[in-house]
């Protein structure tokens, strides 16, 4: 069980995350939706300290980090509980597709390079990219790069996989293959927290949908409820605009 309490983040005097509470069950898939600039990315980035939260606590099982007092070692440990899929893929440009997957296995998780390569090849096969193993990111399409990005995250066997709008930077023709791969990740019962603008996908994959506005969670519930009968007028507004 992952427990986030009172998570708050300010940039200057702009409070971007306002006292967020969130509990996530093992194997749960949560989609986060909401208007631009409401702190969705910041929420994900604070969970693994890419942005340092100002206050609040983050718990992965028995491991608890207090944001205000987090040490460097705690931050590293927290990051090793999570995997992150970036909107702009953010593959290591000086590493091939396979090396993007093995890099952290070898340097962070101290696997032998044989072991890491076997894992990488299994993942490349699953993502349909085995023939691109030796390609550098610059030689891959956006869809292929994002599939490597997801593969890199899969390899980490993280307690929580964070996705920040994984299809938003893609040409429409590549969106489908990336969503397909995310469905496969979901089948493996991976715990997922997904920021997305793909409402149809959210409706289909999520156990729970969270609507954020102004740095707060405004409403949450099963997709049927949020999309079918939202209580807050802001959600109705938002859904009308995006559909």
């Amino acid at each position, binding site marked *: 069980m992952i427990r986030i309490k009172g998570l708050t983040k300010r940039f200057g005097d702009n409070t971007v995350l306002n006292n967020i509470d969130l509990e996530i069950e093992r194997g749960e898939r949560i989609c986060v939706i909401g208007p631009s600039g409401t702190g969705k990315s910041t929420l994900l980035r604070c969970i693994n300290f*890419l942005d340092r939260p100002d206050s609040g606590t983050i718990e992965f099982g028995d491991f608890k980090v207090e944001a205000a007092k987090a040490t460097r070692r705690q931050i590293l440990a927290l990051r*090793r509980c999570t995997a*992150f899929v970036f909107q702009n893929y953010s*593959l*290591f440009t*000086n590493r091939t597709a396979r090396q993007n997957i093995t890099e952290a296995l070898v340097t962070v998780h101290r696997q032998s390079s044989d072991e890491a390569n076997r894992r990488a090849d299994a993942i490349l096969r699953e993502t349909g990219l085995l023939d691109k193993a030796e390609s550098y990111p*610059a030689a891959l399409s956006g869809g292929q790069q994002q599939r490597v990005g997801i593969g890199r995250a899969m390899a980490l066997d993280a307690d929580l996989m964070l996705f920040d709008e994984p299809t938003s930077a893609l040409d429409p023709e590549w969106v489908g293959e990336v969503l397909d791969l995310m469905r496969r990740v979901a089948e493996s019962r991976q715990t997922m927290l997904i920021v997305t603008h793909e409402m149809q996908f959210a409706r289909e994959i999520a156990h729970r949908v969270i609507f954020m506005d102004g740095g707060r969670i405004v409403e949450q519930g099963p997709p049927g409820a949020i999309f079918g009968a939202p209580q807050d007028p802001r959600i109705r507004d938002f859904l009308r605009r995006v559909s």
Partner: protein
Amino acid sequence: MRALDLQYMLGLVPVILSYVPLTLAMAGIAMVLALIIASLLAVERVVRIPVLDGLVAIFISFFRGTPLLVQLFLFYYGLPQIVSFLTQINGVTAAIMGLTLHFSAYMAESIRAAIIGVDRSQWEASQAVGMTQSQMMRRIILPQAARIAAPTLVNYFIDMIKGTSLAFTLGVTEMMGATQKEAAGSFLYFEAFLVVAILYWIIVESLSFGQRWLEVHLNKAHAR
């Protein structure tokens, strides 16, 4: 105006050529050492370790702000008077030391700029997979910075090769020192220095082949 003594010039070529290995060795050793020191200085300038940061800034400022010749004299003639174990320092060592420190200061600045030029996504991806600061630097950031900084660093290496000629002022018989001795015997100064100038020129030009190879190698990951 008199005619050039071509025969003398041709005879001089093998004499000076025999000092090319020493010149290249001084420049090569100084380059390797300078690259290591410059990378460390550059990383420090980026991550900014308290106290150390001030010292590094002063180091870089001093070695960029004073002439190489003055630094060489300082090491060769000056230091042994202050630091007793350096009494045995020879010209070659002093020259390598001077070149190393002088160029490490310049190279630190261009490596620092290159590090900062590495896309933010690369830093964030490294952090997100759980790398420590030093793993991130060694495995992801510095290799990418090397590609950005390479053309500038090659230019510094060229400056360094030419800079080895100053070692002759420390009594080292390298290409320039040898030429000076030959010219003093023959009084054919123009011929002698023209020969050494052309030889330096050829060395530097042949480096540009190496530069092209290096750029292809470093750009491997970026070819489509």
